[in-house]
């Protein structure tokens, strides 16, 4: 009997471990889900949200962290932004908050942020007829139709706040038709 209990306990233990990313009440993904409106709305300053206690994502205080939520079931999602900061990085997360793609300013072909998320189907169509306006955009293929874009801007101290604010103001998230791209 003890043996059966131990085997059962091991199975139950592993099941709980595997299910926690889906069931835990305050996962980063759940917090983002409620803090970020769906794409085409303005990006959200998560650092500011953390300061007032709306989210508790344990963000790096040396960075301004900006988030957008997207849904690419209708159209691809594009995020743009420009300005002068010492360092920026971007991460594309799936609906569970797992990073499927990340980049920083060194690997990007442009000075600013220009990234487009497409479903495998949209990517196939895009490859057949590339749009020139997206030629400098980082192309990310996502398996899931929803997710989050997280942008991090380095803000070492208050003297950078103005520059970081200007960068934040330039950030746009939205369905690609909003950027004048028609299929």
């Amino acid at each position, binding site marked *: 009997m003890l043996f059966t209990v131990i085997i059962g*306990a091991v199975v*139950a233990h592993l099941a709980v*471990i595997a299910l926690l990313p889906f069931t835990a009440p305050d996962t980063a993904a759940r917090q983002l889900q409620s803090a970020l409106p769906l794409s085409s709305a303005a990006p959200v300053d998560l650092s500011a949200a953390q300061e007032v206690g709306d989210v508790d994502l344990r963000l790096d205080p040396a960075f301004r962290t900006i988030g957008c939520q997207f849904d690419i079931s209708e159209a691809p999602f594009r995020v743009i932004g420009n300005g002068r900061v010492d360092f920026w*990085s971007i991460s594309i997360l799936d609906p569970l908050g797992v*990073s499927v793609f*990340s980049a920083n300013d060194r690997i990007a072909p442009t000075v600013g942020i220009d990234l487009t998320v497409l479903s495998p189907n949209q990517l196939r169509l895009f490859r057949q007829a590339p749009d020139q306006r997206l030629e400098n955009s980082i192309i990310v293929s996502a398996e899931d139709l929803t997710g989050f874009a997280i942008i991090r801007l380095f803000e070492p101290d208050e003297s950078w706040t103005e520059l970081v604010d200007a960068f934040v103001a330039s950030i746009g998230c939205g369905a690609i038709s909003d950027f004048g791209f028609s299929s």
Partner: protein
Amino acid sequence: MTFVGRLFFFLLVTTSAIGLGAWSAERVTRSFPGFVPISAESWRGYPGLATSSADPYARANLARTGKLAIGDTEGVEFTAITDSEGAALRAGCSYDVRGNVPTNRLWTFRIETVGQSEDASTMAVNFKSSRLHARIADVDVDLSVGPLPAGPNWLSTADIDDQPVMFIMTLYDSAIATTASFTDLQMPTIKRLACIDG
């Protein structure tokens, strides 16, 4: 054995198995941060924590803490909860954090309180970064952490009650996040100097 006896036996076995399994999972994910892929000094690093390559325990712990982890190409985060002697880090003690770090574009160093992440107001936001770090000695990192002013790169803990804290050092755009070779990993030594209660 009668039917009632067998039913009782079955229920006893299943409930104790599920109870034991769930209880142990709850205990483990509360404090166990996952199997550590890289470590040096008292630092533990988790490249790929945000990605699907993270082990199930690391993902479960991350889910419980609610932390938004950084992606591979963004950087890699190291955490320390003990000094070089193995004693728990405390806000009421002074520490020298000194040594070299793997190649990076910039690093940040911050202090968080331990085990109270559900209450954001208790979380310290005290931080330093490589941009505001005077390089005087011939090492990458030369920080003084503690409640009393010390050295050219002092990070104050004076506004935190004396309690266990965690040091978090993040290396942004570091090759360590994307390469498989973790040999010769160098991280700063955390040396305890003195505590306010002696």
